[in-house]
């Protein structure tokens, strides 16, 4: 932990790019993904597939009996044989390279000033669990539904997008101590 931050200490973390430039570049990536492959971007689908892959190693018969898992990994189907899986690992690498180039590769915990590291990590786990449960229910997360569906004018994705912001804004006031 300490070694990485020591190495980076000499380099100041560069500022993030301007939000509109970020939006433009992300839109360009999204457009190219659609143009070349007909598919958009995504993340939670890969998390689901990786989970099912592990389940399939431990309890293949259980997977074959569960309707939702069956579609991805029933019989000799490989749940990892899907476009979203290389996207996931590519994003992991791309994020690391960007962080490395800009001096932001650093082991740390980002949190509000009023909570402990332990609370933050616990809530991050809980939030991740809730988020991906919701994302699977909605058949996609902010990337696969809001971004990809939003750009292709999918009606359901727009409804979902407002629901995500609605849910977060509705709860934000009550958990303000976590972040401020």
């Amino acid at each position, binding site marked *: 932990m300490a070694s990485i931050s020591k190495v980076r200490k000499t380099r100041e973390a560069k500022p993030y790019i301007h939000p509109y430039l970020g939006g433009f570049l992300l839109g360009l990536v999204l457009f190219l993904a659609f143009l070349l*492959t007909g598919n958009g971007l995504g993340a939670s689908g890969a998390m689901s597939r990786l989970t099912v892959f592990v389940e399939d190693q431990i309890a293949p018969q259980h997977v074959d009996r569960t309707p939702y898992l069956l579609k991805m990994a029933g019989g000799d189907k490989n749940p990892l044989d899907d476009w*979203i899986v290389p996207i996931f690992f590519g*994003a992991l690498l791309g994020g690391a390279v960007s962080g490395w180039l800009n001096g*932001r590769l650093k082991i740390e915990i980002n949190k509000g000033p009023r909570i402990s590291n332990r609370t933050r990590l616990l*809530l991050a786990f809980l939030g991740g669990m809730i988020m*991906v449960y919701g994302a699977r229910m909605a058949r996609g997360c902010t990337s696969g539904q809001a971004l990809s569906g939003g750009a292709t004018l999918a009606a359901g994705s727009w409804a979902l997008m407002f629901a995500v912001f609605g849910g977060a804004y509705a709860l934000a006031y009550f958990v303000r101590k976590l972040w401020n």
Partner: protein
Amino acid sequence: MPVFPLKAFQQVSSANPWTYLVFGLIGFAFGFVLESSGFGNSRKLAAQFYFKDLTVLKVMFGAIVTAMVLLFTASGMGILDFNQVWVNPTYLWSGILGGLIMGIGFIIGGFCPGTSVVATATGKLDGLFFLLGGFFGAFLFGETEKYFDQWWNISGYYGRLLLPEVFGLPTGVVVMLIVLMALFMFWGAEQLERIFGQRDLSRKPKMQMVGALFLLVFAALTIVLGQPSLEEKYARIAPQKEPLLQNREVYVSPAEVFHTIHKQYIRLVLLDVRPEVQYNLYHIRGAENVPLEQIPAYIRKLLAYSPSNTVYVVISNDEKLSTQAWKMLVAGGVPNVYILEGGLNNWLAVFGKDDPQIKALPVSTSAEEELRYLFPAALGDRYQSAAPSPIKYEELEYEEKIKLELKRDKSGGGCG
């Protein structure tokens, strides 16, 4: 013929390992941009919900409108076949409930799945814990989905439903309205940042105006170009498709249609494209009546609802109407479409001989697209020949023309 999306990249499979590389590169760019925009930092993301720093909104809507104007411009110019682009099917209620749950997870955990990936990649431990929680959440969903399987699969299902259809407006107009909405939101976001985040707005980069202008110009372009009609789409693919008609590869004999009805592995949909009056007079049992003018609206339903082993056979009295319908369906991107060879007149020539209620008229008396048989009443499919006996006609021989072309399976697509 629209070149994009490229066929070779449409499906990842272990048979073509290099497609992994293509998607991996797209993922790389995705992760790189997310991290560069500050999405690896949970505090920056959460600040969105306290109006201090609206980067999330700016990046997200910026990306959506950029990709949107480019997509629909490319489609309008005929470079991109929008039918081949994955559009998230609408499952309204599970989408809204899932969205609300996601919002709760977002504000508690400080990430969404994509951003937690880049946070993890840059050493943020809270990102890693979010990601681990996410795997557990995915596991929980897989295990609990069976308790509400039916609701999840059918509630509020509208298939491939696009906003222009919801509002009854041309695509270009909707694109323009969304661009205007986004620009208004960007302006509003900056006012909020000024008030809640004490942000100094006096030094705004000039590029912002260029960006806004770029969006407006492209949105205007989508209005001017419009989206291709089925006729225009067919004109583009005609060089590939006309030979199928000329060589009669898609005209299937009544005997083959009849035998295909009884095949277990094919889901046969008979589309009777004649006017309703004629359909009521006589039709093959199980045929759906979709008059020619209703086909454009019907294609969306076909694309959304149909399992991949569906084969369509279009039917009219002869072949003129059905060939027109075939062109529309093929232009609309519907796979596995065939035409009943010789139409119902030919069907009746094969199966109507023994039908006691039907009488053949002399050929010379009828014009094109008219039935050459006399029916005593509009009994629809209650004629013997409308559902020929499988035992009696089992031995009927034919040249097999139907080849099931499986469309790409997207059941696990989208974000998952």
